[in-house]
């Protein structure tokens, strides 16, 4: 990319502008949901099931109701009167708000206590007595599919098994043919375990129904406020909530990562409680509720096969997957894609044939299937192809870097149509890998590894050359509950040349207030400091689908640029009027129009803004504002190459990441400082599931990993000292050439780490280890292979 086009004072693209949101956060003056306190506010707390599957025989609320300050105990029966005990999921399945017959997972909501304080509400929860009759528990999704397995969704008439859906993509016959003709094949079972986003702020809301005005306001931890408003209107229309009387406010959000996309029962109960009482009702979950009941990510049981020629040319990929969705498919995927964008699984490689199937399954676990800081199911795809590519390279005795370079889609092949139907916009995969290799000193590391191996030391080098797919998405294919996945921006330029811009997305730490202002600064030459960016209030912001799947820059950022360009078009007319020149005779540079050949005759954008309200041309409407609803023509395909060096302690099995070089290419960059910060964070959320995080269940469906005691988030001590670099391959179809970056590193990092560990142990006969690669797993493997300290 060239240097910035604007001055540092204007602060357009390419400037590391200090963040506009930080002055409030560093003073403790942010406003997160739980910071809001309204007069007369009541508190909601939730009774949860100790069983993973059980009939509810009786709920005795009398002791709870006897506690002074407990106002009500809400059960499924209460909600059933209003037909609010079930709600639709984003994937057009159904899930319970509160149960009337049975519970389907441990920690499921059973009843809700409404009280005058947090403490009394918690006392009330303790005092509610529920009698359960345990039912057989289905934990393993493969067993769930076996004939004779207990059918979980007995609420669905005629449902005779636990299979939710079957989805497949690609050319099965061509793939089978390629496998028959293959010179080498490899096959591996890969499990990507259940994990949780664990944003440091949990989920919660304050619902306030104003009975006089008939208006419901909900301050809530949501990444998609507009879509939530529509969902509320659709779900609760029959009890009198209409969309113009619903206002969703998403205030400061303490991290989202996909976990704040779904509608959780707690939100709905709080709304119902406020509508019934007319009082504001606060519900904020604690960390254990967050980990145990909110939407999980991953849980894909994958069987992958790869075919190649002996020279290392990959020819076909075949993947079969069982997707454990818990008791409801409450994933947050575009409607047409129940397995998200998993069919990006051919990755950075030029495959001629591929076929992928995914089967969704019900089990006695919390519902979900959200992203954990990645575009829909892309980490699952990247992990599979990058593990398989490494396996094949090792199998045929080729260096994994050379193997990748041999198979990369070449720069001249873009736009590239993949075997699974995606049209990749741009890429230079070898460029990124070469830079990563050079930066880490790849050849020297391989020499060091060979020497160490002779001495019996365990060192591994792992590569991941991933391709992301973000910016959903073109309306032709992408919608959520029918809502097309455009996004929006509305800009108003005030008479004095300052501006306010509102977007349909919602930052959860990504820095939109800064980067969106920079986009508009780039397009209009108005200093970023003079542009106020707002999001998250459905009463003021234009409708948009929200922030997840790295779609803010690709979609809403583009809307910002397009709205600014509409303003520039009108500004040109006004400037022509002021300068008494023809529009075609004006030259634009960021911030001013001048007359061709007479650079001293010019009008600044601020001059034009003033004139738009004080001296606009006859026949033109006054004002200077525009709205854009941007429907992206394609997705964007950020990419990168990561190289990881690990040392393994033979005594403890601990994997130590010695170095990690990340080369990312997210197209043109708006704010280099913020982009680097996003990559650091993404890498850490790739490292976490690779080595630490997992939510598992015992055979009775008891959760293991349900608090921070045993769900291990990385601290500053374990987290590697990330080394980052970049290449720049602009997106040809995005107005700014940008691609999105928030999730690339989460997607790409786990495979680099897993590949490094297997690389360190390959000579011992180790072919694959499922993440998280814990010391216990490695220790056991080492002992099995006869390695001792």
């Amino acid at each position, binding site marked *: 990319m060239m240097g910035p086009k604007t001055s540092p004072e204007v602060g357009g693209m390419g400037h590391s502008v200090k963040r506009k949101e930080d002055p409030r956060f560093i003073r403790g003056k942010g406003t997160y949901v739980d910071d809001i306190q309204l007069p007369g506010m009541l508190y909601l707390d939730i009774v949860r099931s100790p069983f993973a599957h059980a009939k509810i025989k009786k709920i005795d609320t009398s002791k709870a109701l006897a506690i002074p300050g407990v106002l009500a105990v809400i059960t499924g029966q209460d909600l059933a009167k209003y037909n609010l005990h079930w709600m639709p999921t984003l994937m057009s399945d159904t899930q319970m708000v509160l149960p009337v017959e049975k519970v389907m997972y441990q920690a499921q909501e059973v009843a809700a206590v409404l009280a005058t304080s947090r403490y009394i509400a918690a006392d009330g929860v303790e005092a509610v007595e529920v009698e359960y009759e345990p039912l057989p528990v289905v934990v393993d999704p493969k067993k769930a599919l076996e004939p004779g397995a207990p059918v979980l969704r007995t609420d669905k008439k005629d449902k005779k098994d636990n299979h939710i859906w079957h989805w497949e993509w690609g050319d099965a016959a061509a793939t089978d043919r390629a496998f028959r003709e293959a010179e080498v094949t490899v096959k591996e079972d890969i499990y990507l375990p259940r994990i949780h986003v664990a944003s440091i702020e949990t989920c919660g809301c304050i619902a306030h129904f104003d009975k006089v005005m008939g208006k419901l306001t909900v301050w809530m931890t949501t990444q998609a406020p507009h879509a939530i408003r529509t969902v509320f209107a659709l779900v609760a229309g029959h009890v009198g909530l209409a969309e113009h009387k619903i206002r969703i406010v998403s205030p400061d959000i303490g991290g989202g990562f996909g976990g704040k996309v779904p509608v959780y029962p707690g939100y709905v109960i709080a709304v119902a409680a406020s509508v019934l009482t007319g009082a504001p009702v606060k519900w904020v979950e604690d960390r254990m509720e967050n980990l145990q009941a909110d939407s999980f990510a991953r849980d894909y049981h994958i069987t992958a096969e790869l075919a190649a020629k002996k020279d290392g040319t990959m020819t076909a990929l075949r993947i079969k997957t069982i997707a454990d969705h818990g008791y409801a498919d409450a994933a947050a995927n575009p409607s047409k894609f129940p397995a998200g964008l998993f069919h990006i699984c051919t990755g950075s490689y030029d495959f001629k044939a591929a076929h992928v199937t995914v089967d969704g399954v019900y089990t006695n676990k919390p519902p979900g299937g959200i992203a954990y800081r990645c575009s829909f199911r892309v980490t699952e795809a990247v992990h599979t192809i990058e593990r398989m590519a490494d396996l094949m390279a090792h199998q045929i005795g080729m260096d994994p870097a050379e193997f990748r370079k041999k198979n990369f889609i070449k720069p001249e092949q873009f736009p590239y149509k993949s075997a699974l139907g995606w049209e990749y916009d741009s890429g230079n995969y070898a460029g990124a890998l070469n830079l990563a290799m050079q930066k880490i000193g790849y050849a020297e590391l391989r020499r060091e590894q060979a020497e160490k191996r002779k001495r019996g030391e365990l060192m591994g080098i792992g590569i991941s050359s991933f391709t992301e797919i973000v910016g959903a998405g073109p309306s032709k294919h992408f919608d959520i509950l029918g809502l097309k996945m455009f996004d929006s921006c509305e800009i108003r330029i005030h008479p004095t040349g300052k501006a306010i811009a509102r977007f349909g997305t919602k930052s959860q730490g990504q820095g939109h207030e800064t980067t969106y202002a920079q986009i508009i600064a780039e397009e209009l030459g108005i200093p970023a400091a003079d542009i106020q960016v707002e999001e998250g209030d459905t009463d003021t912001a234009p409708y948009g689908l929200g922030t997840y799947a790295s779609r803010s820059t690709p979609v809403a950022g583009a809307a910002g640029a397009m709205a600014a360009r509409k303003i520039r078009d009108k500004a040109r007319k006004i400037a022509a009027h002021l300068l008494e020149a023809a529009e075609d005779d004006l030259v634009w540079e960021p911030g001013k129009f001048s007359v061709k050949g007479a650079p001293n005759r010019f009008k600044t954008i601020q001059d034009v803004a003033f004139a738009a309200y004080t001296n606009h041309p006859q026949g033109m409407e006054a004002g200077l504002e525009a709205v854009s609803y941007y429907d992206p023509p394609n997705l964007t395909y950020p990419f990168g190459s990561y190289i990881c060096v690990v040392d393994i302690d033979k005594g403890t099995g601990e994997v130590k990441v010695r170095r990690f070089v990340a080369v990312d290419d997210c197209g043109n960059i708006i704010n280099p400082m913020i982009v680097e910060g996003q990559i650091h964070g993404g890498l850490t959320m790739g490292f976490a599931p690779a080595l630490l995080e997992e939510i598992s269940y015992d055979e009775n469906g008891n959760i293991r990993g349900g608090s921070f005691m045993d769900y291990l988030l990385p*601290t500053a001590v374990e987290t590697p000292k990330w080394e980052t670099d970049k290449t720049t391959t602009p997106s040809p179809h995005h107005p700014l050439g940008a691609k999105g970056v928030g999730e690339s590193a989460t997607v790409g990092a786990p495979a680099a780490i897993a590949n490094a560990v297997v690389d360190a142990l390959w000579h011992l006969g180790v072919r694959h280890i499922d993440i998280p690669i814990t010391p216990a797993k490695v220790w056991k493997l080492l002992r099995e292979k006869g390695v001792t300290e």
Partner: protein
Amino acid sequence: MLVQVTINGEKREAEVEPRFLLVHLIRDVLRLTGTHIGCDTTHCGACTVLLDGRPVKSCTVLAVQAHGKEIMTVEGLEQDGKLHAVQEGFWQEHGLQCGFCTPGMLMTSYAFLKKTPKPTEDEIRWAISGNLCRCTGYVNIVKSIEYAAAKLREGGA
């Protein structure tokens, strides 16, 4: 029970139950909402405040335990309209993203730099290991604290 505290230099008191947590006293009663709650098990550190100068996780301290003591929260860092060096460092070095862990990080850093004016990177990483951040990957938090340390050594705030 009556609890009297000095918080950010100001004397405040409140009537609380014995079981009432310090973090709820600070947030819900004294209405200083910069101190956050991120877990129930004293792991995340979002609730870190200084109690008589020592960093504590206010979600596992009872309000009554703070009786007669000095509390400092994130709102007490800025003096006379001038940001403290740790605040300046986090802003300058992009040491925060969502901002939720930030107040706890700032208080831990503040107390750490008082004890350790010339820290190494490893010392910084260990010092903040009781504060979880999900956004930044810690790289820039380390840089922010290094920035603050240098600034404080130069005699800044």
